[in-house]
């Protein structure tokens, strides 16, 4: 359908629109008009993504003189694919109505691992080895050598792409990663470099958060994006975590060992170059004297991850004299590694600020703050000079230099925590040094500054006033929408007691109580026998899930559950989890029915939808609090209290409840959908916990459903399913009748 919002004609690919979608678009349009940032919460299941896409593309179409670029950030690659396929639908619709004027170029961007089509490269195991394998074939020095010696292998796709030079462009259209690979294969061009090149020209770019938030990646991918862009962070309820992770580094013993190996290897290389090609090292030295840490015009294939510090904080001056010579730099690195190793030998947990740490590095290892700050750039320059292609081997030294640069750059919002062992396993020495960022606003600040509109949106952003404080920005629009419903398509319940009327909880003292485990098992058993198709269960952690599933297995409960449905489980191995999910869907499709065990805050909870028959019921076992004994969390809480006056308890509850809401929100995708939600923990019945749930869940939570036991919940579920079933029958009956009418 086509309609006006003020001066913009909006093309919406469906015949009908939900009222909240329209309201959402109106608010969004105002924010775009004001060229400001906005914060929008809209429940899942109301078609947020398509509303967003269709308004922003229509907005761009209505202003052809001043085209805005649209940068859409997703948390995961599969969400990227989903978004792109929605965009495809929209684009087709716009083409139908506007003709060629509506043509846009939209593409997804991912790493080489997901885009490479060179079979020898892509068969490598992880991203780093794919990157390195690619570099071995495409680095400028390798290609120079190959030009003389045809026996040195190169990548034909990259060579073709380079040869076509300016002709290598993507025609307008919407390209998923799969489409990019197919196009690359067709033309014989490297899809990765093609996509990276086209990102600058495209109207719509879809990529992962990190391509904007992580300075290491953003520095090479996103630095040339124009100011007239609209940046959208979808499913952004975790954005503060992504921001602080982008600026955090951890160093373990293995890192130090690897770094030492790297340093030795580099020193051998230096010796070799001194013997064969001393001019090269001298040239580097001269360049550094002139103040150029890096040659400006690096070919794309040589580019490595960029500086971990934020662009504004990077010093624009010459590398200090005492690390200009390669040997000197290496000895500085050696001293740094030695110093960190000494610190890791501690017996107690240590916590200090960056200033104190830098001071102690200076006194004990003789490395001053400025040298630390330049570590990363100096290393990068050295590796290019030494023509090192197998970058995956050098990750350890890179981590050390990231750490050094960050710790040398920032004085507040960070702390350094050294733990000699894991709190839960004190007998196992596993020392780790962590540089943790506590201030989420740091990483996102350049994004707010650089782009005219940043949209932060998700199904769960409550309390909505907390986010501007955490991220330190002033939204021009900040709104939370409720869901307009013609019928109850969600049915949330709070289960506080098991079938034996004893309370259930994952609270620390009740967690491993066999009675609670049994009650949880009984609950699931009741549900699998009542609810058709798919059921999703979320647990509070992997260890808890493993424990409880094992205990169900031992007591025979699991066997009984399996008589009703197939059981799949999320593991920490993504390949296995992906296959399990795929099978889960198949089982739901064919009517066999299945249960999926998953972990709140895990990868599945973050981005997989369990809509329609893939999830008729979701059970949240327990309240997914963070691991509260973690030093990092404690340090962050302290920082939040000191700077934002946010109470620890409030933040923890807020964080746990947003995760729980996120988990249960996975079951619903449109209003035609139906899903039940069970919050199985007695703590949910308390007002202070429950009230943190988003409004669209609370408004459906009846008072009678606040304090249920297993049998009552089973009864409600049975009734709910029955009612839903009769609705379905009516729908089918109406359809049948309409066909009958048509044919008579």
């Amino acid at each position, binding site marked *: 359908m086509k309609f006006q919002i003020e001066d913009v004609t909006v093309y919406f690919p469906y015949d009908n629109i939900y009222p909240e979608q329209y309201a959402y678009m109106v608010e969004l349009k105002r924010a775009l008009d004001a060229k400001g940032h906005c914060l929008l919460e809209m429940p899942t299941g109301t078609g947020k993504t398509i509303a967003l896409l269709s308004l922003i593309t229509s907005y761009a179409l209505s202003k052809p003189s001043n085209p805005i670029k649209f940068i859409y950030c997703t948390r995961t690659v599969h969400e990227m694919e989903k978004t792109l396929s929605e965009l495809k639908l929209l684009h087709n619709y716009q083409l139908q109505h506007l003709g060629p004027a509506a043509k846009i170029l939209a593409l997804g961007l991912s790493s080489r691992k997901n885009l490479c089509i060179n079979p020898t490269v892509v068969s490598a195991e992880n991203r780093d080895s794919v990157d390195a394998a690619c570099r071995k074939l495409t680095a400028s020095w390798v290609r120079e050598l190959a030009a003389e010696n045809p026996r040195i292998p190169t990548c034909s796709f990259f060579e073709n792409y380079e040869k076509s030079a300016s002709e290598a462009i993507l025609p307008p259209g919407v390209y998923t990663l799969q489409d990019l690979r197919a196009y690359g294969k067709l033309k014989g061009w490297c899809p990765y470099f093609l996509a990276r090149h086209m990102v600058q020209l495209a109207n719509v770019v879809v990529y992962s958060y990190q391509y904007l938030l992580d300075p290491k990646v953003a520095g090479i991918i996103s630095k040339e994006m124009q100011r007239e862009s609209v940046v959208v962070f979808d499913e952004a309820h975790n954005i503060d975590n992504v921001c602080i992770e982008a600026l955090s580094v951890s160093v373990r013993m293995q890192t130090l060992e690897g770094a030492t190996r790297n340093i030795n290897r580099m020193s051998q290389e230096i010796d070799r170059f001194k013997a064969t090609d001393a001019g090269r090292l001298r040239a580097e030295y001269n360049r550094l004297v002139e103040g150029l840490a890096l040659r400006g015009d690096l070919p794309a294939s040589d580019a490595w991850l960029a500086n971990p510090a934020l662009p504004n904080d990077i010093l624009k001056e010459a590398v200090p004299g005492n690390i200009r010579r390669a040997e000197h730099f290496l000895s500085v690195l050696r001293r740094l590694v030695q110093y960190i190793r000494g610190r890791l030998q501690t017996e107690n947990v240590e916590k200090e600020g960056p200033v104190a740490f830098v001071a102690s590095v200076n006194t004990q290892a003789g490395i001053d703050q400025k040298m630390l700050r330049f570590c990363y750039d100096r290393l990068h320059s050295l590796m290019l000079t030494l023509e090192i292609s197998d970058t995956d081997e050098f990750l350890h030294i890179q981590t050390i230099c990231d750490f050094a640069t960050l710790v040398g750059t920032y004085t507040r919002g960070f702390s350094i925590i050294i733990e000699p062992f*894991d709190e839960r396993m004190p007998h196992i020495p596993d020392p780790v040094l962590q540089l943790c960022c506590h201030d989420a606003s740091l990483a996102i600040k350049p994004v707010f500054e650089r782009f005219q509109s940043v949209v932060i949106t998700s199904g769960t952003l409550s309390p909505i006033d907390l986010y501007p404080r955490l991220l330190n920005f002033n939204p021009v629009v900040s709104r939370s929408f409720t869901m307009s419903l013609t019928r109850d398509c969600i049915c949330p319940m709070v289960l506080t007691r098991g079938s034996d009327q004893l309370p259930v909880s994952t609270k620390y003292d009740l967690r491993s109580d066999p009675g609670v485990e049994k009650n949880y098992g009984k609950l699931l058993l009741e549900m699998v026998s009542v609810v058709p198709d798919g059921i999703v269960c979320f647990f509070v952690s*992997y260890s808890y899930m493993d424990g409880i599933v094992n205990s169900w297995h031992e007591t025979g409960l699991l066997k009984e559950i399996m008589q009703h449905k197939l059981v799949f489980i999320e593991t920490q191995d993504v390949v296995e989890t992906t*296959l399990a999910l795929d099978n889960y869907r198949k089982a739901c499709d064919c009517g066999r029915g299945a249960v999926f065990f998953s972990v709140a805050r895990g990868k599945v909870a973050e981005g997989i939808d369990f809509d329609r028959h893939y999830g008729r019921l979701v059970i949240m076992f327990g309240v997914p609090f963070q691991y509260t004994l973690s030093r990092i969390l404690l340090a962050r809480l302290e920082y939040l209290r000191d700077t934002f006056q946010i109470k620890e308890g409030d933040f923890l509850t807020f964080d746990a409840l947003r995760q729980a809401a996120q988990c249960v929100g996975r079951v619903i995708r449109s209003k035609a959908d139906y899903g039940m939600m069970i919050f199985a923990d007695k703590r949910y019945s308390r007002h202070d916990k429950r009230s943190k749930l988003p409004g669209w869940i609370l408004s459906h939570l009846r008072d009678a459903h606040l304090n249920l036991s297993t049998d009552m919940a089973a009864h409600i579920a049975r009734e709910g399913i029955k009612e839903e079933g009769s609705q379905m029958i009516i729908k089918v009956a109406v359809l049948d009748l309409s066909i009958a009418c048509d044919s008579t």
Partner: protein
Amino acid sequence: MADKQQQVVVKRARHKSSVKDPGTPGVLKLTKDRFTFMPNDPSSPVKHNVEFRTIKGHKFTKDGTKQALLNLTQDQGGNYIFEFENFPDRNVCKDFVASAIALSGEAGRTVPEKSAVPIQDEQLSAAEMERRIKLLQEDSDLQKLHKQFVIGGILSEAEFWATRKKLLEQNYSRRPKQRVALKNDMWSTKPLADGQSNRVTFNLTPEIILQIFAEKPAVRQAYLNFVPNKMTEKEFWTKYSRAEYLHSTKNVIAAAAEAAEDEELAVFLKQDDMLVNEARKKIRQVDPTLDMEADEGDDYMHLPIQDHGLPRNDNKDVLDSQYEPYRRSFSQHLNQHAAVVLQGRVIDVELGDTRSVAEALARTKHAELAKDASDVYLDKERLERISRMTEIEDLQAPRDPAVAPLSIKDPRDYFDSQQANAFSTLGDTVSGAKQLKCSVSTREAYCSLKECISEIKFQGLTEPTINSEVAFKVLNGLAQNISSNKYHLGRNPNESVLDSLPKITREELLLHWSSIQELLKHFWSSYPITTKYLLTKATKLKDAMSQIYPKLQEIKESVQSDLRHQVSLLVQPMLQSCVFMDQAFCCRP
């Protein structure tokens, strides 16, 4: 028919005078009209040369039981028992014998009449013949009809099957054989330990072995490699059980130590490399909107400790990397098990023979993986599914009516109920149909339906078009009406009047009912009667019908008085149709 007579089956078998008899080994040769048995030892007196004409029936043991037996019963009461080396052999002979018996039965009687038939008896291929025989075997009602009419000489073979062309086609080519699914039961290694000694017992059945092979390709491979060259089957399973026991104790170090000493045991204890490879291949087929592996490729933050506040704790075990391969998680097993169950029974081999099971599984797996690599069709299907998934169905006018393909389990039953509808409108003989005990009468239902339709036409189709009560009423009415036809015909086993009748009477009634249907079908299909052939056919049909008439009357009178009314209601339409047919025949132009 000359070409069919040349068809010969020759199999090794033992002839037995009784089931317990060890039997005489020899060769069984089957031709279309007779079977011969020649013992290997020419001096043995056991020689047979019997015509199928004298054979009345055959019995056989179930697949997977101890012996592959085939028992041919003679008219005079004698029987021939053959034991075969394996079930496939037996089944070939069984099928052949079945067709031969059926044919020889017909051949004896129908052949003389066939000379009068102008329609050329189609030359049947062997496959066609087999198909028919199979149908007859599967469906006892059909068999009865066949016996009554074809063998009884009223209809010719071709005529009989002409009305069932669809059944033949559908039956064979499209409907896949229904298979029993795998049991969703994990073979948990709960060892049966007796309190005193250190002995631990495991139970293995062929079903469990199949499951183990399907879930653990490495074990399957090991079986194919080791048995019987390196060790016996028993040793193999003992070793396997030992490994499972070690796993169940969760003592990784002990497992590693034992594996170091015994390389065969190590195969079971280590992680299954084949599974890992398989997963690697399968992951490329996965729906990209699910593919979490791709995320790894985009994750530039190597921060294992801080996964959104989720503590990671499993990788901090004390264990050295040398023990790593011996660790196996229960979750992995769980997923693999569910995947196998979901896939169902992929092979079609008797479970008794472990080796052939292993080989068959290995073959199917291999074929499956080879196929995957270049399946464009799958790709397309996947894309289609994604685009369908992305649409918000709620906001869109429905593209197609949301209907699932109708899967009719018993086509005959369905056909009957359809026929019955036609039947009742055709002759309007079912006057009794209206006095049914349903809550809404047909008329009421129809009115309500009409109302709804006009309402929809008026309002368009928005969500709550009709209130649920009305919809329910309509549905009930419609459903009742359909089922009432069934009810009337006594095909509904639950609430039928027929249930109250004695079993013999009921069966007789049903038989008559289906014979009348059959006769009527043929009768009307021969109209208009233009040729002499059709006339003779119609006469024959009419005669057959008139034979049924007194039988029905007899049934009607024989039942107890309290049931008589209902039975007469049932019989009424049948009788009327007899009369009606008679009249129609007499009044023909």
